[in-house]
């Protein structure tokens, strides 16, 4: 897909980076480290390939995040390699990090516009780390439907203005749910793709 804004409007490569910053970078890096220990450079490269599209991470963001994760005991340096340039640290996830990323993956996101990016990231990381991606999607479906039930009750008790406002939110949530259902149906395909 081409990046930029063309006559047809915003493409995926414009849309994704605009919303990708709302998700947790720390958890995403933890998930990548759970897949296998890496150097900061490799983590950035894998992140950019999978999630960065045409808005790659800055090295500063990567090392600042790794430093915070290190300070919080979620990652550790398991090797320091000397090279031609500065020493290279290889990071690995700790037990506390695995628990933290597991809790983040299992926690449903608050239904809101442009959620797909975070959910897509969660699903890919679940597949990479051998977790049940279908459960993540089902938990999110449950959370979306819970909010839709709440809006429906508000709509039934409200006046026409309430109904129209609630309908607007309901149609957006319905679109999210259709994406969740379609992704659910494509999980086997996606599992093969992320392991390539």
């Amino acid at each position, binding site marked *: 897909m081409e990046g930029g804004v063309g006559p047809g409007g915003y493409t995926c490569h414009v849309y994704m980076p605009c919303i990708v910053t709302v998700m947790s970078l720390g958890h995403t890096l933890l998930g990548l480290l759970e897949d296998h220990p890496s150097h900061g450079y490799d983590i950035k490269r894998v992140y950019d390939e999978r999630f960065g599209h045409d808005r790659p991470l800055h090295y500063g963001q990567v090392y600042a995040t790794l430093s915070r994760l290190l300070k919080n005991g979620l990652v550790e340096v398991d090797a320091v390699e000397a090279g031609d340039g500065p020493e290279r640290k290889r990071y690995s996830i700790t037990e506390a990090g695995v628990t933290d990323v597991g809790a983040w993956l299992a926690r*449903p996101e608050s239904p809101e516009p442009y959620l797909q990016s975070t959910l897509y990231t969660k699903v890919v990381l679940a597949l990479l780390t051998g977790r049940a991606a279908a*459960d993540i999607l*089902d*938990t999110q*479906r*449950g*959370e*979306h*439907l*819970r909010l*839709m*039930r709440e*809006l*429906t009750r508000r709509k*039934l008790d409200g006046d026409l203005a309430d109904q129209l406002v609630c309908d607007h939110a*309901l*149609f957006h*949530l*319905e679109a999210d*749910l*259709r994406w969740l*259902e379609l992704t*659910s*149906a494509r999980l086997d395909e996606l599992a093969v793709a992320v392991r390539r």
Partner: protein
Amino acid sequence: MTADTLLKAEGIHKSFGSTPALSGASLSITAGELVAVMGPSGSGKSTLLHCLAGILRPEQGSIDYQGLELTTSADSRLSALRRSDFGFLFQFGQLVPELSCLENVALPLRLNGMRRRPAEERAAEWLERTDVADLAAKRPGEISGGQGQRVGVARALVTQPKVVFADEPTGALDSLNGERVMRLLAGAARDSGTAVVLVTHESRVAAYADREVVVRDGRTRDLTAAI
């Protein structure tokens, strides 16, 4: 089985030839509860509904309706149960084309042995409740799809059933008419204390339910419990 459980299916298996439709599906419903059954096309949700209503007989598993095991009950017993305790609402209304709307709504009462006049009086009350009293004398071919479904809601509830089985009741309607039908169905069922098993692929329709169960590959999962 808790005291207020009305219908409980456990470990249902049902195949059509060599194709499995349900592979261990389970579902329980309490009195007055509205449960949405969701899932992709071909997942087995309509088959589950037909098993719960005693229309299809599963090969394995149990379905308990107030102490009666449906999987081993005689066809005649199941037919009587469907007339007395269950109501049905389908995607395309399935009204009898030769009968007027009033006669269609009165039909389940007449099949239960009620005399014509009281049956039609009660049918007229239900047409009034579902906002289609003016259609009483018309035949199904003379009314719109949305109006037909409102007559269908009246027919499903006229016997004051314990459970209504609704299979994609808004599937053939536009958003506004679908909304009207769901308001009527959910409102009337709650007022009457009738439980509803609602098969739908539309999440906006499922949002009228108290909880949602998803059927995938012939198995059930309660999404409300998943949160």
